[in-house]
């Protein structure tokens, strides 16, 4: 009864018919409708990182036995807002001797794919902006564009540390992209589709009456796939323990050394939005999306989805404040000699399982 999907679509149709009734040409109405959809999405994706930044600081505080931000608002909940305002009004510095165009474009290239990536994510019943047939592939493809932005940032700063950071970052992103994609392949094989929505739908139901039919509960392959996906996602978002590209103590913050003000804010936003995206993908792929097993009828699916997503976001935050940073060669070896072989083994095992079940 609290499902947002039908509600929203009804409101949306009413709005559309009202607009057409008042003599707006259909093309314009269509564009308007899409604009509203996009606007909602952009708003969501821009707001979530603010919550995440706050959460991160709180989690960090609790883990280090302190309180975290407390002064701005009750329990410091407006801290991020204040930080944002500060960043907006900060001076926008473009270093002398940098490639100005690249420097300006880099944050945009990094941040804009994130918004596009959220388009096929099923937030709940009827809450999917665009139901693409190839949404998993689409998300991987689009999020790959951000890597170009990292390289542009490294090049455009005209600074050798930034350049090294950009190179390292790109190498890391490209490398971890491979096990990340391969770790999802078992899911695709089991459900026989590339659509996140269909995958999430396929996980509704119970095994033996108590175990949800989520992919994570497939013996061995589910857990292995999820662990690889999680590790690779952490690396993809450049977070500790894989934050080589922006290691403060080694590279003076890597590719975003020279960025300040709003551009820095954009880079930051991209990072947290990617954390959220990865978690949302993990939920849709491994945790049944909006499926609420026995309690499904009482609590709306979008709530389930967001709840699970934030639980996984918490894993990301937990990692950051628990593990030390890896060395750059360890990082690469871990990817190519551990994650990649195991993800391939996982694909093989899944094939075997499908064959045996036939």
């Amino acid at each position, binding site marked *: 009864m609290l499902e947002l999907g039908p509600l929203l679509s009804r409101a949306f149709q009413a709005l559309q018919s009202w607009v057409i009734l008042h003599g707006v040409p*259909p*093309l314009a109405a*269509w564009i308007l409708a899409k604009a509203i959809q996009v606007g909602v999405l952009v708003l969501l994706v821009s707001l979530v990182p603010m919550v995440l930044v706050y959460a991160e600081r709180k989690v960090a505080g609790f883990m280090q036995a302190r309180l975290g931000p407390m002064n701005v608002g009750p329990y410091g909940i407006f801290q991020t807002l204040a930080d944002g305002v500060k960043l907006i009004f900060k001076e926008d510095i473009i270093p002398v001797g940098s*490639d100005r*165009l*690249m420097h300006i*474009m880099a944050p945009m290239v990094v941040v804009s794919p994130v918004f596009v990536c959220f388009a096929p994510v099923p937030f709940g019943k009827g809450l999917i902006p665009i139901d*693409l*047939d*190839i949404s998993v*592939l*689409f998300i*991987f*493809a*689009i999020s*790959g*564009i951000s*890597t*170009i932005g990292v*390289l*542009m940032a*490294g*090049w455009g700063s005209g600074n050798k540390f930034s*350049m090294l950071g*950009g*190179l390292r970052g*790109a*190498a890391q*992103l*490209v490398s971890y*992209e491979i096990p990340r994609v391969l770790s999802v392949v078992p899911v695709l094989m089991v459900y026989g589709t*590339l659509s996140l929505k269909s995958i999430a739908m396929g996980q509704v139901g119970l095994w033996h009456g108590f175990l949800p039919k989520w992919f994570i509960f497939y013996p061995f392959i589910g857990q292995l796939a999820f662990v690889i996906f999680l590790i690779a996602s952490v690396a993809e978002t450049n977070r500790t323990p894989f934050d080589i590209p922006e290691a403060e103590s080694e590279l003076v913050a890597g590719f975003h050394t020279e960025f300040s003000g709003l551009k820095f804010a954009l880079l930051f936003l991209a990072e947290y939005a990617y954390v959220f995206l990865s978690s949302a993908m993990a939920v849709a792929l491994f945790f049944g999306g909006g499926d609420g097993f026995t309690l499904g009828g009482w609590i709306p699916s979008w709530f389930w989805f967001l709840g699970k997503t934030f639980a996984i976001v918490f894993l990301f935050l937990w990692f950051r404040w628990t593990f030390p940073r890896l060395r750059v060669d360890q990082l690469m070896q871990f990817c190519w000699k551990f994650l990649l072989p195991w993800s391939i083994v996982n694909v093989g095992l899944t094939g075997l399982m499908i064959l045996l079940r036939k």
Partner: protein
Amino acid sequence: MERTLPTLIFACMAILLIGLSLIVVTARSVFRGAVALTAALGVVAALFALLGADFVAASQLLIYVGGIMIIMLFVIMLSQRPLDHLDRQTNEQWVWGAFFALAISCALIMQFRAVYRGVFVTTVATPTTASIGRLLLGDMVVPFEAVSLVLLAALVGAVYFGLDGKDRT
């Protein structure tokens, strides 16, 4: 609406693609050229999507933008020197090159206009992933395997050339 919108999108993308391609071949800074090429490849992916080839479009993004262009940018970053973008980037034969490139374009355009004018299609595009998968592992399995061998060979070759002289044994 259904008929004009694709045309509109196509016109925008065509202009964008041509502009970006021109930047690719004329930019003084190779890095900027490569970034323009990346964008151009993205536009090509969009064209594929417009043509109903959704899987190919996504692959185009994944392979070109997520793979090839990143390596390309990598190499550019490793091999460019600070003031390289002040150098002249075209050689002396650019007039002739431009002339013949134009000639090729014109010849092709004339031919295409003459032969393929007014070929329309009315069918609605359907998802292609499954049929491509069946094609690649069915009728095209031999070329598929051959290509994977080629890739392996390229990989080995790249590693070999990438090694320093002293590491090659």
